[in-house]
């Protein structure tokens, strides 16, 4: 198919088109649903075919408008971008289904779908961007849309959380733009490849500028990716959003910024940066903090969605840990965890949303006996939780295994132990929920499993947890090549 070369922009364009069209047909829910899901499906198919193509033929670079780099904007799809795009498209499609047919938590679905489509389009654009300013534009779209899909719930808490998110996000954007300005100042380029080659010449002349620029961009991305200690906005924002938004935010949005950050480091700054600056050690220190703080705070939560949000803080730590350890396997583990965490955290949030909607209970202390009333939902929740803990056979185990192996490869025994301890912490807060839900004393709250159409995305995600837990080799070519981008 000749138009496959256009896939990198078509994915974005299709999602944007659907987003633009949905307000026009907003008064007919069935049509809106069809457009919404159709766009997601088309994006998925395009992303899949693009990934296959990238695997077969190597990096795909698409000059938008026909202008070659550095003059035009180039969309650069390397293995990492292809992998990220595929993860995004797959998980997003499942969440789309839930948003369309799941319990309704916003007053009007039309605007909600529009925002979700815009968010997804921006994320797709972001992971494939080969141009620094283009990346910034997509980051801004996704930030704004991400805040909007929290605020759309309209409760006091969600509005307040989204405002706080907005302020911090704007600070992050400011830092990011400043960083980009400095980079442009000392290179005169915006294309990442050209920045890298120019920097080899000019970096010595302007070291402080470059350093400040990296610092500012790091803080900008850190805030948006909720890297400890810049995670303060996350628990409120993710726990007060509508269910589908929580899944999108925790499962995908947070990770997209990590992907963008890592792409900047190897595309624009060059790998030498890891040797020149103590970035690895910073990552290691911060991710250790994230693992401990996220887990400890998660343990004391009584609201299920807040627990899941704090757990996201910890899980973001895993991904950064992978890049901090910087051995081949550790990076593979970190990259795999992007997928695995996306799948399992979406699963947990969707299952939690179903539970809350069906029973009206959000406090964990009242979950007692609910598992017997809505077994299918709770089995799905259990699968997600087991994956979080890292029970073998589930997806979460695989990334932890790779990370632990990578820690030993990097001669850092202590981090292998840290990963295991954090698994134990995960177990300490997930298993009591499950035990009390299945075997606890029954409360009088009435609840049943929802209709099949609501449960279908949850079931698919649960299946994916096992699938990627048992056959991670499907992702191995992509993940290995991604790691090779960093470790040569």
């Amino acid at each position: 198919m000749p138009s496959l070369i256009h896939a990198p922009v078509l994915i974005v364009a299709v999602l944007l088109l659907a987003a633009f069209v949905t307000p026009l047909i907003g008064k007919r829910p069935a049509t809106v649903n069809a457009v919404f899901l159709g766009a997601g499906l088309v994006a998925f198919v395009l992303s899949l075919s693009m990934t296959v193509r990238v695997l077969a033929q190597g990096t795909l670079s698409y000059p938008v408008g026909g202008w070659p780099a550095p003059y035009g904007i180039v969309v650069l799809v390397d293995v990492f971008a292809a992998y990220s795009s595929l993860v995004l498209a797959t998980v997003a499609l499942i969440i789309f289904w839930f948003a369309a047919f799941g319990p309704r938590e916003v007053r009007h679905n039309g605007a909600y779908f529009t925002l979700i489509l815009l968010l997804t389009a921006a994320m797709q654009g972001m992971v494939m961007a080969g141009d620094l300013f283009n990346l910034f534009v997509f980051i801004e779209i996704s930030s704004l849309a991400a805040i909007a899909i929290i605020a759309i719930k309209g409760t006091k808490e969600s509005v307040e959380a989204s405002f706080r998110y907005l302020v911090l996000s704007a600070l992050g954007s400011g830092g990011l733009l400043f960083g980009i300005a400095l980079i442009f100042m000392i290179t005169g380029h915006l294309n990442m490849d050209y920045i890298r080659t120019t920097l080899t010449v000019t970096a010595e002349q302007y070291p402080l500028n470059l350093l400040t620029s990296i610092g500012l961009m790091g803080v900008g991305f850190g805030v948006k990716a909720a890297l400890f200690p810049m995670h303060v906005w996350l628990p409120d924002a993710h726990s007060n959003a509508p269910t589908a938004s929580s899944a999108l935010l925790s499962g995908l949005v947070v990770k997209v910024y990590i992907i963008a950050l890592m792409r900047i480091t190897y595309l624009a700054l060059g790998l030498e940066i890891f040797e020149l600056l103590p970035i690895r050690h910073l990552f290691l220190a911060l991710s250790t903090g994230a693992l401990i703080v996220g887990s400890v705070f998660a343990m004391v939560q009584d609201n299920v969605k807040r627990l899941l949000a704090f757990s996201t803080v910890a899980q973001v730590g895993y991904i950064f840990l992978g890049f901090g350890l910087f051995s081949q396997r550790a990076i593979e583990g970190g990259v795999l965890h992007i997928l695995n965490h996306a799948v399992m955290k979406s699963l947990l949030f969707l299952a939690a949303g179903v539970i809350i909607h069906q029973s009206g209970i959000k406090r964990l202390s009242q979950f007692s006996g609910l598992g017997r009333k809505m077994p299918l939902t709770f089995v799905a929740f259990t699968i997600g939780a087991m994956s979080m803990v890292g029970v073998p056979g589930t997806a979460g185990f695989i990334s932890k295994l790779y990370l632990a192996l990578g820690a030993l490869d990097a001669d850092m025994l202590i981090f292998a132990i840290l990963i295991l301890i954090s698994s134990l912490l995960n177990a300490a807060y997930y298993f009591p929920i499950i035990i009390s839900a299945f075997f606890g004393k029954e409360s009088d709250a009435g609840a049943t499993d929802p209709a099949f159409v609501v449960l279908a995305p949850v079931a698919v995600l649960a299946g994916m947890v096992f699938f990627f837990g048992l056959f991670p080799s499907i992702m191995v070519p992509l993940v290995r090549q991604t790691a090779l981008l960093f470790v040569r």
Partner: protein
Amino acid sequence: MAIIERLYTNIYYLVSVVLFIIGFHTMLTHNNLLKKIMGMNIMDTSLFLFFVAIGYIRGGQAPILREGVMQYVNPVPSALILTGIVISVSFTAFALALVVLLHKHYGTIDADKIIALRSKRHA
């Protein structure tokens, strides 16, 4: 002395840095939510000023092509800022909408009071 001279030459950069800090400070420390948003705008415009200053070339003319002009200023930063300004106004608009909503819910737009109200409700 050389440093002062250099700072004077780069006075536009210096002013934009100062404005950046003022905006940042306003955003972080002011309780009034509208002031926070104004701080955000000041921060953004300071960056735009920085960009424009990067693009300036001594003796350059506006980059609209015409006969007889030898030197134009760099058009690239200007093009980027156009995008930046629009993004900034979008953020502002949405932030203002949230402030309006918060005012509706809490009857105040003071961050401390909102936090106090919320924790009272929780207690």
